[in-house]
């Protein structure tokens, strides 16, 4: 029983690859599917966690089936439909299809066939079986907020950094990062990236001990700089991809927004991607802010800015709808302000690979086991 994490080799040998779809095309399909789930989610006022959960289902689905067998927009609708129910923000199937209809070209919508609802319903059963009913998905967002609360420094800059990291997390959904790394790691990496780009230097943090060189060592163990940089580059590569020329999925007409950031992180030497060019529009709705002087909320992608963090004075209301009430079982909302909060426990990071969950461990096994209630010892009756 493998976990839901794959190494790069596995990601290049997917059912789609075996079906003759080249890697770049598959990555584009994945990006388009994810983007579409996010856009549909926004249109329907679904919260970020619903969209993000839908996207993760989508990526997992195509580790078992090929894009040739299942057209991506139908799958995307189905994933959002299921995620809506799982995250307690259910939407009627017909409403999702209606919204999708509005977002897709006729040609793309034709893949839904004669009875789109039936198509999605049938697919839902296949989806559930494919993802082995592993419904609960964690995302980096909650970790981002949790980590941010421990960082000390200029509040305005910190807020800016968190918002930028939030945007990167949104955009990371369009990559296969969620199939590669635990949400904790992604959160750390993208905060690290946002910190660099917004010039927020973390010099001190709550719970710091002598053995911690970097703030994230409090939360994840054994994360190398190489790994962090690799994760950052996978996100940054989204902004440097040349818009596809395919007829099948023409690039969406995007408004020209801010140029992509000039990264202070070294480029990878794989030579696969075009270097960041400041006059190239980002291919997505999102615009990544230049390192400084951006108006606070300009770089919202699908959820806009992160939700206000209690204990972060000066965090004004987000531009779009407030984040939903934490869904079922999600991490609890941010707690007390950083100066009160005890340092959170170190996340027992499992080296990757092997998969996150050791084989044979049931999905819920590491769920919180409460300590035994402090029952007193037997004492003689009065």
């Amino acid at each position, binding site marked *: 029983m493998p976990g839901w994490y794959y190494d790069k080799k596995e990601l290049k040998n997917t059912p789609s690859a075996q079906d003759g779809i080249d890697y770049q095309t598959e990555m584009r399909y994945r990006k388009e599917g994810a983007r579409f789930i996010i856009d549909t989610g926004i249109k329907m006022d679904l919260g970020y966690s619903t969209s993000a959960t839908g996207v993760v289902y989508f990526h997992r689905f195509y580790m078992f089936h090929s894009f040739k*067998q299942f057209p991506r927009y139908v799958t995307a609708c189905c994933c959002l*439909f299921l995620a809506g129910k799982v995250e307690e923000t259910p939407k009627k199937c017909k409403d999702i299809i209606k919204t999708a209809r509005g977002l897709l070209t006729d040609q793309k919508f034709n893949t839904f066939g004669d009875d789109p609802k039936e198509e*999605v319903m049938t697919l839902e*059963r296949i989806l559930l079986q494919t993802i082995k*009913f592993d419904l609960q998905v964690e995302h980096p967002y909650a970790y981002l907020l949790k980590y941010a609360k421990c960082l000390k420094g200029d509040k305005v800059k910190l807020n800016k950094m968190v918002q930028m990291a939030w945007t990167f997390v949104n955009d990371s959904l369009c990559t296969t990062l969620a199939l590669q790394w635990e949400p904790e790691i992604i959160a750390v990496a993208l905060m690290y990236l946002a910190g660099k780009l917004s010039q927020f230097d973390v010099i001190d943090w709550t719970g710091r001990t002598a053995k911690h060189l970097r703030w994230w060592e409090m939360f994840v163990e054994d994360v190398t700089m190489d790994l962090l940089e690799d994760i950052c580059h996978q996100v940054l590569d989204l902004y440097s991809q040349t818009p596809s020329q395919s007829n099948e999925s023409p690039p969406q007409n995007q408004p020209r927004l801010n140029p992509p950031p000039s990264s202070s992180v070294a480029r990878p030497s794989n030579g696969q991607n075009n270097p960041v060019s400041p006059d190239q529009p980002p291919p997505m709705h999102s615009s990544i802010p230049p390192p400084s002087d951006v108006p606070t909320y300009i770089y919202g992608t699908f959820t806009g800015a992160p939700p206000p963090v209690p204990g972060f004075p000066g965090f004004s209301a987000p531009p779009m709808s407030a984040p939903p009430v934490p869904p079922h079982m999600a991490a*609890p909302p941010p707690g007390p302000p950083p100066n009160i909060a005890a340092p959170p426990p170190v996340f027992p990071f499992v080296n990757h690979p092997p998969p996150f969950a050791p084989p044979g461990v*049931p999905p819920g096994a590491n769920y*919180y086991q409460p300590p035994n209630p402090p029952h007193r010892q037997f004492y003689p*009756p009065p």
Partner: protein
Amino acid sequence: MQNNNARERTAYPQMMNNREKEKYIENYNFPYCDESAKYEKVAKIGQGTFGEVFKAKDRRNSQKFVAMKKVLMDNEKEGFPITALREIRILQLLKHENVVNLIEICRTKATQSNRYRSTFYLVFEFCEHDLAGLLSNVNVKFSLGEIKKVVQQLLNGLYYIHSNKILHRDMKAANVLITKNGVLKLADFGLARAFSTNKSGVPNRFTNRVVTLWYRPPELLLGERNYGPPVDLWGAGCIMAEMWTRSPIMQGNSEQQQLTLISQLCGSITPQVWPNVDTLELYRTMELPQQQKRKVKERLKPYMKDPYACDLLDKLLVLDPSKRADADTALNHDFFWTDPMPCDLGKMLASHTTSMFEFLAPPRRSTQMRHHSLPRPTTSTVQDGGYIDRVF
């Protein structure tokens, strides 16, 4: 249709047509979702709101039995039911000795005859009895130590699920399973949900239409929607009393009557004993008997005899949910720490060689505690055709 398909196939030349898709689904071997045919149905053991429950045997290991709960999807306009999704998600998270273990989810093969739509089953470790079934059998006699063990395990299960921020919301004897070795398992998370302790000050807006009427606490009957773990402890109290009375202690036939029965047992519902109760939505709508004295100990004493038992029950059947004992407090009660100490049920159960389930049992006879002779709500009293299920 032809037209549409033709267009579709020009745009996406490699896409499967419907026929190909059906074949694909029929032949795809989902690595994570086994076929239900790996189990062989032995008997129907339950019929509930969401579907039938079967006892089944593992074809590869004839010693291993499971309970299969069918996911009813027939009248679902919105696909896989959200209630079943909730139940699955919660069961996947909860792993504890006193919580029923979900082994896997199985499917029937998609074929032409089911229109390529699989049926799904939740597969559980099999438990030989449910508490309602055991209590309805007069030959099953619990000693005081054995009752303590049952109640202790019940509270242990609640302590665990509440620590994990889950409310059960359907406590009743039929949803409490007991293995042949005497291990108690909380079951039926079909109405369960997660809760958060609302530090943020935003009150919850849960539905109050949960919990079988006879086990429903006063706050739910009065329309409270911002409730929490105490709702399950009320149910635990009702179940505890039932260990002696052998039938549910308050069998109302309407919400109004249930409140009346509660007032007659636990005393009048007033702001004196329950501050702010008057702010609850239905406080003015419902007729609440006045001048009722609290008689929990007095009325249960003839059944329970043990003073510690009466005292613990008195602390569970508390009107004001904020004063009701929580699982931890209840587990620390003298009841569990005085002689006779809780003792294993395994030996006693070993003398009973047939499974006892509410579904298979005749309707339980009424006792003095029963005010109205009515069929049990929400559960079927249909008799199974005399199936005798051997435990051993």
